[in-house]
């Protein structure tokens, strides 16, 4: 790996001054939520470590992860791609095409066996031997297994690779399958979202380069520093939630005043992501700030959890097109009706038996 330049070398070669380099390290440290003490550590890592080769493959997906990635502001995607990693293969972004591109992938895998990171955008469909997604003349699932075999770690970009996303929504005709269910013998880091936040994507990569290890993952395998809290926990509209001030209609006074979107079906309270802190497009905004509820795109199976616009949603996982309130009210109605009927029959029966008993009462008692 000696022939690969260090990050610092590459940056200096691009005309970046040491002063700018240190600024960049400080920005990255704060983007990762690390203290100032980590700035020299990051700088040191950048100066001494060779760039990590990355292979980025695309399965069934919409490229929104790539679109998001290239908009990262801290660090700039250009810095990540040109300075931090050695993006040796990415069929969407790379200049080479066709056989040359496939050769680049083969070269990287052979040259850096066990040392490269495999980034997966999208997922492989397994039905019909994977024929629903052909990449480089082969089913994508084969390419994925081939690239994963010698990888150091795998990053599952987005909801597709992490959970399956829309192509895995019921009834999932192509049997689109998230990466961790196909590759089971490698450390996998899930970065869900549709797409994931740009700074989260580059932040994860920066962390892995700086500390030479995976960030702390939660139970589902997501970086805890970005997915440890719900949108709701850090939402700037939270005071309206606690106050009981809700948007009732899209064009009502509450909507104009920026009230809580809970009643419009906002999934913020059940969605783990960093949108309400990191936000999007260099921190400009995020869905709730723009007046629309969170749709929960970074949660497992979010397409199969009913409408985006209700809090109490249809329970599709049981195959019924009814929500808990409809089922509960129906059950309570049936039981209530049954009770009324039963009470009426009970009263009739008891009146009847009394009427029968009364003439012979004296005889019975004697």
């Amino acid at each position: 790996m000696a022939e690969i330049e260090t990050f610092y070398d590459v940056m200096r070669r691009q005309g970046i001054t040491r002063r700018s380099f240190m600024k960049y390290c400080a920005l990255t440290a704060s983007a990762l939520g690390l203290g100032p003490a980590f700035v020299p550590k990051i700088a040191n890592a950048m100066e001494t470590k060779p760039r990590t080769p990355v292979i980025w493959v695309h399965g069934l997906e919409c490229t929104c992860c790539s679109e998001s990635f290239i908009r990262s502001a801290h660090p700039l995607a250009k810095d990540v791609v040109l300075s931090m990693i050695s993006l040796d293969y990415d069929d969407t972004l790379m200049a080479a095409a066709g056989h040359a591109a496939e050769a680049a992938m083969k070269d990287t895998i052979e040259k850096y066996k066990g040392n490269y990171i495999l980034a997966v955008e999208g997922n492989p469909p397994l039905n019909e031997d994977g024929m629903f997604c052909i990449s480089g003349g082969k089913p994508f699932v084969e390419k994925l297994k081939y690239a994963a075999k010698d990888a150091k770690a795998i990053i599952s970009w987005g909801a597709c690779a992490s959970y399956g996303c829309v192509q895995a929504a019921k009834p999932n005709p192509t049997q689109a399958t998230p990466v961790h269910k196909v590759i089971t013998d490698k450390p996998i880091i899930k970065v869900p979202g549709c797409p994931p936040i740009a700074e989260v994507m580059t932040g994860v990569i920066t962390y892995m380069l700086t500390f030479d290890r995976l960030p702390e993952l939660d139970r589902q395998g997501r970086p805890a520093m970005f997915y440890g809290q719900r949108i709701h926990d850090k939402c700037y509209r939270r005071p309206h939630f606690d106050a009981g001030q809700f948007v009732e209609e899209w064009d009502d006074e509450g909507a104009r005043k920026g009230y809580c979107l809970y009643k419009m079906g906002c999934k913020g309270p059940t969605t783990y992501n960093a949108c309400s802190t990191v936000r999007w497009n260099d921190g400009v905004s995020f869905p709730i700030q723009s007046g629309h509820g969170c749709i929960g795109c970074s949660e497992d199976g979010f397409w199969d959890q009913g409408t985006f616009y209700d809090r109490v949603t249809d329970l599709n996982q049981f195959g019924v097109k009814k929500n808990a309130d409809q089922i509960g009210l129906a059950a309570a109605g049936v039981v209530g009706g049954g009770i009324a009927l039963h009470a009426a029959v009970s009263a009739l029966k008891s009146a009847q038996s009394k009427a029968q008993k009364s003439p012979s009462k004296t005889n019975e008692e004697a």
Partner: protein
Amino acid sequence: MNFEATQRPDPGVPLTGDATEADLATVTRNTSVYVYEAPVRLWHWINAAAILVLCVTGYLIGSPLPSVDMGEATHQFLFGYIRFAHFAAAMIMTVGFFGRIYWAFVGNSHSRQLFRLPIWNRRWWSEVVDEAKWYAFLKKRPKKYVGHNPLAQIAMFFFMTLGMSFMILTGFAIYAEAEGYGSLLDQVFGPLRDLVGGSHVMHQLHHLGMWAIVVFVMIHIYAAIREDIMSRQSMVSTIISGTRTFKDDDPT
């Protein structure tokens, strides 16, 4: 039977109130058993109050009241109070439930009925059928039970013992979310969310559980009042005084 000859009250003692001689004869035949000890009764009523609060506030959390605009959000905490009431009642219910489990170990034998179904007992099953017949108007009079009748016991076991356990587990799995990743509650209950498919699914299941409890409460109150009137033993007063009184001395 001729009770009059031997058990007739002393003619020298005047009858009290409006009691007739026939009344007194009946009174001498009535029996009572102490069934529900004080902690069981206390738990019952605390639990009932907690469930009432939990159902009302729980429904309102799923479908909030129309927006209130008394002032700035800073000066208003309406939804927060509704959620607080829900959490507070849930904590009381949970602690009560543990207390009730404790009492099953140290209390009388009736205090254990809630937690186990004697499914290997042939007679119990025949009494399940018997009780079902009584509710289906196929029997003229029900059997007498000191504790719960078998149908009631089944309902209690599934809706209360299992149902409340389900609500406590799902409830804490949701409550743990606010505590944050890595907190003790999250470490204990968080995996349940992954098990059912995420936070949102967990909320829906918890909501569905509420309706199961509502259905139980309806049946429970109806059956208690009906049995109090129509069966041969006391019901409503028993959970207040703890004493089950029987309306006749026929043992079968």
